[in-house]
C-alpha cells in the first residue's frame, strides 16, 4: 500500500506541557508555524532544523519558557517586549558570520508588533534581514490581562476600552500591520488564520523559503480575552473569515495592485453577517444593544476591503 506523505510534517518544535490556556488560538500558530518552517528548511537546505527563533515578551513567550522548563525544541531566545525584530537582526547577522545555513523566525504579539515593537520591525524589514516575522494577532495585550492594542477591533471590550455610558468599547479602527509591512516593499507579506491551517502552513513555508524578510499577520483567538469557550476557538476564527472580518491575502514586493486573496467570495458578497462572528464572543456582547456601533464596524470593514482594492457587501 502506498504511504502518503502527511500534508503537515510530523516533526514538532513546540512541545506539550506549555502553560497556554486550553483552546488558545495562538498556541496553534506556534505549533503550525514551526512545523511549516521546518519543512521549508528541509526542502531548501536539506536540514529541517535550520532555524532559530527570536520571541517578544507576551503570552506565547511566558507560557513556553518558564525556567527551568522550555517548550521549544529549536534554538530560542527572548529578550524584551519591543525588540524581537532587532534581536532577530542580530542573530541573523551572527549566523551569516558563523556560516550557518538557514533562516531566523521572529514571533511577536499584536502589542509587541503593532505598538511598542513597530519601529524595530520597520528597521528589520527595511534592512532586508533574512527573517520571517510572525505577528500572532489575538487583538489585545493578553499577557498583562487584556488591554487594548492598536490591533484591537472597533467595539471590542478590553480592560482599557470598557464599554460604558460614554464608551462603546474600543473606539478606533483596527490597524493592519500587514499593510505597513507591505509598504516596505519586502518580498512577501501575508495574512493567515488558524481556521485555515493548510493556507497558514503554505504561507509560512513560502515565507521561509524566500531570501530576505517576510511578514505574516496571523489571527489567533484568545479564550479569556475574547470571552469565548475554549472549544469555540477555531469556529470563531473561521467566522472571522466567512463574515469578511479577517481578510486572507498575499502581497509580493509591496505590489498591492496584484494582491492575491484566499477564500474571497467571487461576487464580493459575504454570505454570513458579522453578527454571527460577534455574537459568539463576550467582548462584543454590549454591541448588540448598540446597533449603530455594529453598523460603524461594518463600515470600517468595508473601508478596509476598499484599501485592499475590493468593494464588498456585508449582509
Amino acid at each position, binding site marked *: 500500500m502506498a504511504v502518503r506523505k502527511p500534508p503537515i510534517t510530523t516533526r514538532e518544535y513546540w512541545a506539550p506541557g506549555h502553560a497556554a490556556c486550553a483552546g488558545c488560538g495562538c498556541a496553534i500558530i506556534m505549533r503550525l508555524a514551526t512545523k511549516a518552517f521546518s519543512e521549508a528548511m528541509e526542502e531548501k537546505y536539506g*536540514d529541517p*532544523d*535550520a*532555524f*532559530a527563533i*527570536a*520571541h517578544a515578551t507576551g503570552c506565547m*513567550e*511566558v507560557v513556553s*519558557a*518558564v*525556567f*527551568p522548563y*522550555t517548550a*521549544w*525544541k*529549536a*534554538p*530560542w*531566545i*527572548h*529578550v*524584551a517586549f*519591543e*525588540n524581537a*525584530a*532587532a*534581536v*532577530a*537582526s*542580530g*542573530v*541573523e*547577522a*551572527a*549566523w*551569516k*558570520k*558563523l556560516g*550557518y545555513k*538557514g533562516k531566523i523566525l521572529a514571533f511577536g504579539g499584536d502589542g509587541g508588533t503593532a505598538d511598542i515593537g513597530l*519601529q*524595530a520591525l*520597520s*528597521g528589520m524589514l*527595511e*534592512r532586508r534581514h533574512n527573517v520571517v516575522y510572525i505577528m500572532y494577532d489575538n487583538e489585545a495585550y493578553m499577557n498583562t490581562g487584556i488591554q487594548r492594542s492598536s490591533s484591537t477591533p472597533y467595539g471590542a471590550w478590553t480592560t482599557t476600552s470598557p464599554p460604558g455610558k460614554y464608551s462603546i468599547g474600543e473606539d478606533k479602527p483596527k490597524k493592519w500591520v500587514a499593510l505597513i509591512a507591505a509598504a516596505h516593499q519586502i518580498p512577501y507579506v501575508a495574512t493567515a488564520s488558524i481556521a485555515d491551517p493548510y493556507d497558514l502552513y503554505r504561507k509560512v513555508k513560502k515565507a521561509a523559503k524566500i531570501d530576505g524578510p517576510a511578514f505574516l499577520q496571523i489571527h489567533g483567538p484568545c479564550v479569556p480575552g475574547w470571552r469565548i469557550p475554549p472549544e469555540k476557538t477555531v469556529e470563531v476564527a473561521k467566522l472571522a473569515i466567512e463574515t469578511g472580518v479577517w481578510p486572507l491575502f498575499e502581497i509580493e514586493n509591496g505590489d498591492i495592485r496584484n494582491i492575491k486573496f484566499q477564500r474571497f467570495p467571487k461576487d464580493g458578497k459575504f454570505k454570513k453577517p458579522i453578527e454571527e462572528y460577534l455574537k459568539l464572543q463576550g467582548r462584543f456582547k454590549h454591541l448588540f444593544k448598540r446597533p449603530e456601533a455594529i453598523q460603524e464596524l461594518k463600515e470600517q470593514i468595508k473601508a478596509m476591503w476598499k484599501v485592499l482594492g475590493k468593494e464588498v457587501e456585508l449582509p
Partner: protein
Amino acid sequence: MPMRKVMKGNEAAAWAAKLAKPKVIAAFPITPSTLVPEKISEFVANGELDAEFIKVESEHSAISACVGASAAGVRAFTATASQGLALMHEILFIAAGMRLPIVMAIGNRALSAPINIWNDWQDTISERDTGWIQFYAENNQEALDLILIAFKVAEDERVLLPAMTGFDAFILTHTVEPVEIPDQELVDEFLGEYKPKHAYLDPKRPITQGTLGFPAHYMEARYKVWEAMENARQVIKEVFEEFEKKFGRKYQMVEEYKTDDAEIVMITMGSLAGTLKEFVDKKREEGVKVGAAKITVYRPFPIEEIRALAKKAKVLAILEKDISFGSGGAVFADVARSLINEKEKPIVLDFIIGLGGRDVTFGQLEEALSIAEKAMKEGVEEEVYWIGLRKEIL
C-alpha cells in the same frame, strides 16, 4: 612593531574594535560618539574588518541586535553616548542577566534637559546598577587599551558580563593625541577567539535563552551576576598584568599619584585625572601635601583599593561629573560605602564639577582644595559642594 598614529579618541575606539575583530557591530549615530561607527563602517567597507555592520534604526535596536548576536555566539560591539545609552537602559540589564559579554564604547556626555552634547559622566554613571563592568579612560591610548581589556575581562568564564569603556566627550572623543596601535598578532594572542560554552543559537544543540524566572529562581540568577562581578575584581587584575606584559602599559583599578605622604587626596576619573595631576604638581611645589587618585574601574568598585588609599590620607576629596539628585555624587556614595566600617577613616567630601562640558580650571580645583583644607582643620560643614557654578545667573 606597533604603529604610532595621531588620532581622536573615537578613532582609537574604532581601532580597538577593529583589533578585537567582533563579528557583529550594531550602532547608531550620536554626538560625540558618531565617528566610532563611521570609522568602523569604513574598516568594513575596505575589507579591513570582516564583520556584519548593522545600521540599526535606534540605540535600543543596536543593543538588542548585539544581544541577539552575542546570544548566537559571536563577539559583538557597539558605541554610543548620553541619550543613546539611556535609550538602551532596559536592555543593558538583560545583556548582563543573560551573561552576554558585549563591549561598548561610550563618549561620556551629559544627559538632557537641557540638551547638551558636552562632557560629563551622567550617562554611564546612571547605568552603574545594570551589571556592566565599567572602565574610564584618561586619554586616547587608555580608550583603546581599555576596550581591548574590556573584551578580555568580559569574555572570561569567571565573569561573562558585558563591559563598557567611557572616555570624555570632546576632551577625548574629538581631540587628537598620539596613540600606539598594538600589533594584530599580539591582540589575537591576547584575546583569542570567542567560543562561548553558555550562549549559542545552534540548531545542532538547541537551547532556550531568556526564560521567565519565578521567585523560586530569580534571586539566584541575580546573585550569580553579583558573584561574576565580584570575580571580575581578580580577573581584571590578572588581565591588567597580562596586558602590561604583552603591550608594556600598566593599568590599575585605582592609580595613585603622590599619595604617600599626602594629607589630602583628590580622587577623580577619566580625563580630569590629567588636569588633576598637573594641579598636584603645582601644589606640591608650593609645599601643599596633596595627592591624586584616578579610578580606572568603577564597576566593580575598587573597595579594597579605596580602603588602602584612605589609610594614607586625612581627607578624600572626590571630584565628579555626575549627580544623584537628593543624595550626592555617585562616586562619593561608593567611596563612603567602602569606608563605612573602617575603624579609622578620613573625612570624605564630594565636589560636583564640570557638568555638561563646564571647563574645570585650576581655580576650581583650588576652591575644592581649600574647602578640603578647612574641613581638615575645622571639621566638616557640608558634604556635597557644587564647584564652578555661575552664581550670578542662578
